[in-house]
């Protein structure tokens, strides 16, 4: 595969979703159906990235793991505080601790 074709292609499509709406939306109205669907895009995409990484960390379904426990705690902290620093600290801290315990045992 041509890796430069890949980099250029990825750069173009990424810029194409970021820049035009920043410039145009204040001036041009998007169809209501599009705006409505767009509202669900961040939650849908980010969730679809997170959940398999949490529940299938090694490729097999593992509902109880350092990944899952740390994510639940991070989720609770995120809901309560709505702040990223405590969420990341609590989630990563607990995750690294549980992994250490799991590997040490």
């Amino acid at each position, binding site marked *: 595969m041509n890796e430069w074709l890949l980099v250029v292609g990825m750069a173009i499509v990424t810029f194409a*979703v970021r820049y035009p709406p920043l410039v145009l939306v204040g001036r041009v109205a998007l169809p209501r159906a599009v705006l409505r669907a767009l509202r669900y895009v961040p939650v849908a995409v980010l969730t679809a990235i997170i959940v398999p*990484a949490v529940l299938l960390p090694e490729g097999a379904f593992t509902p109880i793991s350092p990944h899952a426990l740390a994510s639940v705690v991070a989720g609770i902290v995120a809901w309560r505080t709505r702040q990223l620093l405590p969420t990341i600290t609590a989630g990563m801290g607990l995750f690294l601790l549980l992994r250490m315990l799991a590997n040490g045992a």
Partner: protein
Amino acid sequence: MQLAFFTQGGKVVTISKQAEFWRGVKDTLPLILGTVPFGIVFGALGVNGGLSPLATLSMSLFVYAGSSQFVAAGLVASGVGAGFIILTTLVVNLRHMLYAASLSPYVQSLGQRWLLPLGFSLTDETFAVVARRYPEADDSPYKHWYHLGSALAMYSNWQLSTVLGIAAGTQLQSIAAWGLDFAMVVTFVGIVVPLLVSRPLVVCALVASVVAVLTAGMPNKLGLLVAAGAGIAAGVAAEHWRAEPTLAQEAQA
């Protein structure tokens, strides 16, 4: 140094471009904590998966979209063609359209000199930070300097951590074993959970979760696209379901 005067709670406050810029940098620091390990993992994955060090760094420099770079590095490693990876990038990054659209009203007075870099550098992290600053009640005319500070802090951090990952890459054969890639998951949890403010959004997240797990075995991360599509459809549909119980209750009454 240029200063602006504005009122906040009846007091006259002065704020400079520099002060806004550094506030933007400062408010972005917690997110940098989450993206440094993520950038290192991307750099290592890129060179271990078959990209040249220069192409790996170029992806960070010119694409600058962490989650799609991560997915792309994985797809390169499994030998998928460029066309499919570019299509996946487009879908994974579609959410930036929403970010850009919602910031658009705040940046209408700015020229291209501002809009081009601010558009290019829009990420989940910078959006999460500036979407809080712009609507704040004070009428500071330099909020775009805050935005620039946030974007530049995140951009430089991303390049630096990519370089670290490339340098470590050949040594770190199984970097996933370190668990560093989990930092991305925790950061995204911190971004998504506060967004779940209505029932349709919760339905969207639940459906995307279930479908993502069920389709995780599909080749080429196709499951990601299927799950995202299902989540969006479920969210839109849930807006309609909400009205129905009310009608049913009315009929009963």
